[in-house]
């Protein structure tokens, strides 16, 4: 029970900070829209090839925005010297980690709320429940892994370079399953039921694993 209180307090604190400063979400949302613009020129997307290219563009943009968002969540704590202050309170590291991860997930979901309509607007992607579900389900697992390694690299030198290096390979299952769901939704063959089921399984696995690992990453 105490863990839940702590996690919620941490998440609330992060969301309140972001609401007051508006440092991250507007910049990330803008980055996502810009990524679509660049993709348009890079791939010359038109109505013929959109179906093949757009799912990839979606995941690429999302992955890089997520890296920045998760990295920031812990880098800021480290720079303000507040990470240590939190850890020295005897609050369970797993609870603190959960709070940070919940807030980072919600902030990324806000960015996705800009990305998905922008995709629909620019490339005519149908804006459906399945698309949103696939993206959200992938976000959960990616956030768990991303925040764990963001917490790790925040305590290391060269953190900006190392985070993608550690996180991207571990995100591949989410991108494979999420990509499949989006492709199917855009008209490729196959069913997305299985993709969504896989995403849920991966989510459960990695949320459990990261919460077990949190104390080794966060406690000196």
């Amino acid at each position, binding site marked *: 029970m105490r863990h839940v209180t702590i996690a919620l307090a941490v998440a609330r*604190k992060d969301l309140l*900070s*972001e609401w007051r400063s508006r440092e991250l979400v507007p910049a990330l949302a803008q980055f996502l829209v810009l990524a679509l613009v660049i993709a348009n020129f890079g791939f010359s997307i038109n109505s013929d090839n959109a179906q093949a290219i757009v799912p990839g563009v979606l995941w690429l943009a999302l992955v890089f925005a997520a890296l920045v968002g998760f990295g920031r969540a812990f880098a800021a704590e480290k720079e303000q010297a507040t990470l240590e*202050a939190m*850890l*020295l309170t*005897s*609050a369970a590291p797993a609870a603190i980690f959960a709070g940070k991860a919940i807030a980072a997930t919600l902030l990324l979901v806000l960015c996705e709320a800009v990305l998905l309509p922008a995709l629909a607007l620019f490339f005519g992607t149908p804006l459906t429940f399945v698309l949103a579900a696939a993206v959200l389900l992938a976000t959960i697992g990616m956030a768990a892994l991303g925040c764990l390694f963001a917490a790790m690299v925040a305590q290391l030198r060269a953190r900006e370079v190392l985070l993608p290096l550690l996180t991207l390979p571990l995100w591949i299952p989410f991108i494979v399953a999420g990509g499949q769901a989006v492709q199917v939704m855009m008209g490729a063959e196959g069913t997305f039921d299985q993709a969504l089921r896989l995403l849920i399984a991966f989510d459960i696995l990695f949320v459990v694993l990261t919460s077990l690992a949190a104390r080794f990453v966060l406690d000196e």
Partner: protein
Amino acid sequence: MSAILAAGITHWFGSEPALEGVDLVVERGEHVAVLGENGAGKTTLLRILATALEPSAGGLEIFGLNAHREKRRLRTRIGYLPHQTGVYPALTAAENLKFFCDLRGVDKARVAEMLDFTSLTHVAHRRAGELSRGMQQRLAIARAIIHDPLLLILDEPDASLDAGAHELLERVMGKRTVVFATHDQALATRLGQRTVQLRRGHVMGTGSRLHVVR
């Protein structure tokens, strides 16, 4: 039983020894000032005593508990004021303290009490980032004692505080066991019952009940 029993505390950063074989005994209620030049190892020693850092070698017992094994339990009894104030700039002074009440499971009534204690009540609802450096330091002090710790570890507590600060620090220390680092010899003799002089990671002596030295 002593508050702190440290034996042969040694710590390396890479190949640089920051502390070598430091022995320290602090009795309950005692105020000990740690003096030394920049880079003498004061902050490292304090971080180790605050359980923020595990020493590379050596044994540490605080209130009879092993600092390595009983870290979590000890942290409820230790208040640590780090070198960097570590406040959330976007939260108000009161929100900063409230957050730490949540983390520590302390009654929220302590927030107003602590703000009053550190004379910050009039800026309670201003964002911490907008406060002066000295006020941020006061806020950090309030955070360090919000759970009414038995042992206080203060890293240069007088940093950027004004003239009234000595009196505040005196009240903060009170009956608690305190280890504090400072450059200010006058502050050390006024607030400390004895001093420990660090030089290049070694204890160089002085003070009555000092256990030391290679």
